[in-house]
């Protein structure tokens, strides 16, 4: 066996150079990208199925069989408002899938994270990397819904895209979704994973203004107020604001502000949860 020669580090400096931490951050992203490329089919399957079925059933099957959500003439309008909601819910779902589930596994039993925690960057930056990678996936997942909106609906849909707003909403929404994933991932034990879906994803989706504009809850004033705690409401509303005209939606300023604030808060709590899980 050949001898292994170890050369000592020349000198040690107390502060890690920002360049070291940046290189580590980028390498962690590259690692996540490599894994995503390897598991791309799985990514597609878990990303595409839900919006595909939603669009298919609500915007193709229902109008065809005359089961009009929104009634016969309203079908086109419903399809139009649904596109934004489906994109929003797909992004939230992806944030949890891409960030929370792997973290729960890591913390729960594989403990692989212990090695990445030893990479030469602050622990908080490792959590931040998870959010960046998750946000990118949420963004891609959201974008994948657009072609579905074009080809699936039986009735024509009427999108008027405000691109600057669309970009702002999608980017902030992606960060908020991934931050939510970080928050959930640092607080859930493996045996509680089914609860993520039962107690979080499903209520969030059904009460997230995905299938109806928030304003239309007016007759149920109490519900309209309660769902304001659901960040998906703002993402759905923001998507409709960016994609449609004529469908009522919240003011874009409110949407952007709440998405940014919710994202920042979830990120903060998530990072501190992450630190608690990896440091003792």
């Amino acid at each position: 066996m050949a001898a292994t020669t170890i050369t000592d580090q020349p000198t040690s400096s107390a502060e890690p150079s920002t360049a070291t931490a940046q290189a580590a951050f980028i390498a962690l992203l590259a690692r996540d990208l490599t894994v995503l490329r390897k598991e791309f089919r799985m990514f597609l399957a878990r990303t595409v199925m839900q919006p595909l079925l939603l669009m298919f059933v609500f915007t193709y099957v229902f109008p065809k069989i005359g089961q009009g959500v929104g009634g016969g003439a309203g079908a086109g309008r419903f399809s139009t408002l649904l596109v934004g909601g489906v994109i929003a819910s797909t992004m939230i779902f992806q944030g949890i899938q891409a960030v929370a589930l792997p973290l729960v596994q890591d913390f729960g039993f594989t403990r692989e994270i212990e090695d990445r925690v030893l990479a030469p960057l602050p622990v908080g930056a490792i959590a931040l990397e998870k959010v960046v990678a998750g946000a990118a996936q949420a963004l891609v997942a959201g974008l994948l819904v657009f072609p579905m909106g074009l080809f699936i609906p039986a009735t024509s849909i009427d999108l008027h895209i405000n691109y600057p707003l669309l970009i702002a909403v999608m980017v902030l929404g992606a960060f908020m979704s991934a931050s939510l994933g970080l928050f959930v991932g640092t607080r859930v034990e493996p045996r509680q994973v089914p609860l993520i879906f039962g107690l979080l994803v499903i209520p969030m989706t059904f009460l997230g203004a995905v299938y109806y504009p928030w304003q239309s809850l007016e007759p149920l004033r109490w519900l309209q107020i309660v769902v304001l705690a659901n960040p998906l409401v703002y993402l759905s509303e923001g998507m409709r604001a960016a994609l449609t005209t004529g469908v009522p939606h919240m003011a874009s300023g409110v949407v952007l502000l709440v998405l940014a604030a919710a994202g920042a808060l979830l990120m903060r709590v998530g990072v501190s949860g992450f630190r608690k899980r990896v440091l003792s």
Partner: protein
Amino acid sequence: MINHADDAVIRTHQLRKVYAGAPAFGPPGARPGGPPGGRPAGPVASQVSGGVNGAPTKPRDAAVDSLDLEVGRGEIFGLLGPNGAGKSTTIGMLTTRIVPTSGTAMVAGIDVIAHPAATKQHIGVVTQTNTLDRALTVRENLVFHGRYFGMPNKQARAEADRLLEVFRLGDKSDVGVQTLSGGLAQRLMVARSIMHRPSVLFLDEPTAGLDPQTRLSLWELIRELNAGGQTVLLTTHYMEEADELCGRLAIMDHGRILALDTPDGLKRSVDADTVVTITAAGDAGGLATALASGDGVVKAEATPRGVEVHMRAAPGIVPRLMTSAADAGFEVTDVSVAEPSLETVFIQLTGKDLRD
């Protein structure tokens, strides 16, 4: 404090860890949420009024306490002790994963507590659990690790290939790490930990759970790395491992260092040069008493493996021991004669067996 010049790669002073939520010093009521099912401090009443009347509450176990340690460049230094002695907590603190309650720790000249991210650049760590990246292949595990530590992709690939050869993992480079046996996974963990050429390599129970042959080959590897200049700090509860590998070692129990010396120095500290272990039917304590008064006998005591007789400068004494045993009415079934081992040292220091 002794000042050992600049070649100390690890230096701790009064390093201490009490786990949050675990019993701590002070009145129990002051604890941040005592652990459910934790050892109660005493009568319930004292939990309420504890400390008020100044009654000394029992000092709680710190996982690691008052740890002063210096490891020089190029050493293989061992922490030997039973499970729960505080070895892994010590490694955890030196590798930034466990935040000390108090004290200081310097690794490669960096204050670990103040600058954890900078410290990480200079350490390689093999933890007790398999932390290989299961989403990556064997080779990718090395390449990405190198890249986390700032190696350009090309250099990381070259270094990975070199290490795969050195660690005889070349034929496994493209398989997923789940398929590796325990021994191969451990070898890959060691290879990964030195990818970025750390100043200190930390090995936490590196051969626990490995079969004897794999253990030997890992020892050989560690020795070779050390011959190349690698400083190593390892923990173990195997005496043979400490004896074989370590230049110096600290014997730990209950979070404290009980003795620190070379393996030979530790063995010399035992009050005897020969240890005779005698097994006989009947009352071991009685046999120990019967043997204790013999010539050259330093002490005799009953242990789980028989009566251990510590002797000094006592040639030809075994037959006399046998006679003494027979005279006292014991039928000896087994006798073994050995030099003091680290186990002897450990028992002398703690009054218990390392395997307990």
